[in-house]
C-alpha cells in the first residue's frame, strides 16, 4: 500500500492504483467529477492510464450550489 492525499485526506491505496480505480473504490462516477492529479487536470480518457505514486495529491471536484 502507498499513502496519497485525496481531497485533503490521507488515504492508503494499493501500489499502481489508477485514477479510474481510485474513483471506483470511492464510488465516484467519473462522468460527474473533474480530477486534478498533483495540480494537473486529468481528462476522462486518461484516468485509466494515470497511476498513483506515494505522496501524490488528488482533488476530486464537482459543481455545487453557488451564487
Amino acid at each position, binding site marked *: 500500500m502507498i499513502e496519497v492525499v485525496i481531497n485533503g485526506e490521507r488515504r492508503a491505496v494499493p501500489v499502481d492504483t489508477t485514477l479510474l480505480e481510485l474513483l471506483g473504490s470511492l*464510488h465516484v*462516477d467519473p462522468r460527474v467529477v473533474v480530477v486534478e492529479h498533483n495540480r494537473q*487536470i486529468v481528462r476522462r480518457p486518461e484516468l485509466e492510464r494515470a497511476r498513483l505514486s506515494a505522496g501524490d495529491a488528488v482533488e*476530486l*471536484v464537482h459543481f*455545487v*450550489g453557488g*451564487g
Partner: protein
Amino acid sequence: MTVTADLARDVPFTIGGHTFQSRLFVGTGKYRSNEDMGRAIEASGADVVTVAVRRVPLDRGREDGILHYLDPKRFFLLANTAGCYTADDAIRYARLAREAGFNDFVKLEVIGDQETLLPDVAGLLEATRVLVRDGFKVLAYTNEDLVTALRLEEAGAAAVMPLASPIGSGLGLLNPFSVRTIKRRLKVPVVVDAGVGTASDACLTMEQGVDGILMNTALAAARDPAAMAHAMRLAVDAGRAAFLAGRMPRREVAVPSSPLEGMLD
C-alpha cells in the same frame, strides 16, 4: 402597449457570442432544499444559472449532485470562482470548472476581504488577463468603480459585473450613479451581481440601463423563493421596459399637470 410587446423590440442580450433569453441570472446556493431551488429557478425564467466548484464529499455514498436538479441541456451553467482569494486560486477553479465540459464561461471572483467579500481588483485584473489568454469568456465580478470596469474591459472581459451592494447583504443598489456610468462607458455587457434584496431593487437596477442582473440570496432567503423569483422576473422586465421607455427629467419644482387656462373667476 404591453410590457411584453415593448421588450420584444429590445436588442438581443448577448455575452461572448452567446445570446440569452432572460436578463435575470440566478444562483443556486443556500436554498432550503433542492426542490425549493428548482421551483424558484423555474419561476424566475432564467436561462443562466450559476454554480460553484467544490470537493466531492468522500465516503458519503452516492449523493445527488446539483446537476441532478438542473438539466445542463436546458440551463446555461455559469461556474463561479467564489471563495477564491488569489488570482492563482481563481484560475485553478476556472480551469477545473471548464473541464466539466459545459462551456468556457466563468464568473470570475477574486475576493479581497472576508467581512465584506469585496473584490481584490488587482488579483481580478491579473486573473482576467490569464483566463482570457486561455480562451475563457470572463464575466468579472467587481465593485462599482468605473476605472476598474474599464481596465477589465481592456483586459478582455466578456462582461463586467459590478455589485449593487455586498454579496448576500440585500442592501439593494447603493450607488445608481456609478452603475449607470459604468454602463454608459463600457462596450461589453454590464450585469449587476450581488446585493439585490427585493423586487424594487431589481427594478431600480434595470432602470439604470444595465444589461442584466444576477441574484441568489434574494431568492434563496425569501420566505417563498418561487414567489420572490416571480416578482423578480416582473421587476427585471419592468425596469428594462422603463429604461427603454426613457424616464421624464427630474425637476426640483412642481409643474402642473392640469391646464392653467379655463379656471373660474
